[in-house]
């Protein structure tokens, strides 16, 4: 997690995802919360292991990406591997407002307002 891949070459990113550029779970929003269901195992790809260590509690996809120092797109692919293997679970944002219904429910807004006032 301390290592940053930020400056690494596209080749390195290619290796991390085994050459995949798509196939990520489309439901993985930037703020989907992911939680590890098990710890890392020996021989596991280091990025997968790092995710499992940092997600002992819930963490948003975007935060996982920042801590890994990897782009969101690459992070989504890695998280999809772990989801498929049952090693993490995802708590998706609900009910996602759509262009037709972009507005949040009043009780959610009330909660946000209370928290902001208390900041």
């Amino acid at each position, binding site marked *: 997690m301390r290592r940053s891949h930020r400056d690494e070459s596209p080749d390195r990113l290619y290796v991390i995802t085994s050459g995949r*550029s798509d196939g990520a779970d489309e439901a993985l*929003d*930037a*703020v*989907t*919360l992911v939680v590890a269901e098990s710890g890392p195992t020996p021989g596991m790809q280091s990025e997968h292991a790092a995710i499992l260590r940092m997600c002992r*509690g*819930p*963490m*948003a996809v*975007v*935060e996982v*990406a*920042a*801590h890994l120092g*990897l*782009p*969101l*797109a690459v*992070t989504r692919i890695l998280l999809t591997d772990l989801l498929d293997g049952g090693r993490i679970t995802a*708590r998706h*944002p*609900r009910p*996602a*407002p759509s*262009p037709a219904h*972009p*507005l*949040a429910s*009043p009780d*959610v*807004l009330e*909660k*946000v*307002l*209370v*928290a*902001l*006032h208390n*900041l």
Partner: protein
Amino acid sequence: MHSTTSEPPTADPPRSLPPTVDQALKIAVVGGFGVGKTTLVRSVSEIRPLNTEETMTRAGTGIDDLDGVEGKRTTTVAFDFGRITLDATSVLYLFGAPGQQRFWFLWDRLFSGALGAVVLVDTRRLDDSFFAIDRLEAQGTPFVVAHNDFGEGAHTLEEIRAALDLDPQVPLLRCDARDRGSAKHVLIALVEHIRTLIAQAPR
């Protein structure tokens, strides 16, 4: 260009979310380069703003695509974000993102489902906000406009509203993005605006 907050973060904010958190919300803070997006996020965030990047590959049909190699281009754009834990079950993420036209197709995905947006403007470069405002209006995303006051003080809010051709319904307020209370006030104005829109919406 602000790069520091006026007050340091208090104590040692918890880095982990409560284990019971199951709902994440998002608010976008958009604006031109150097207008103070990250400063505003930092002022209210419980964590030091983090940075990552979004990439998107799309067909290279753009008129500026001169290389003529294959049909695909990848665009990468970095953005900052922070968060506020609302309660035991909810967390709010704040995304600071450049609002210029060339980045917008990336935000369509990143911001989908956002509660709303804050458009941060700098009167020295109002042009940077036109596209963001147009786009948010077209999407029906609720937003407020906040003038990050760098002390130039030469323009009234009425003048800014006119220059932006802003709908009278859209709240426009002044703020100091470095100040926690001021940044908080902007977010509260946004959420209250959303509440008003809901109350007005036909059921």
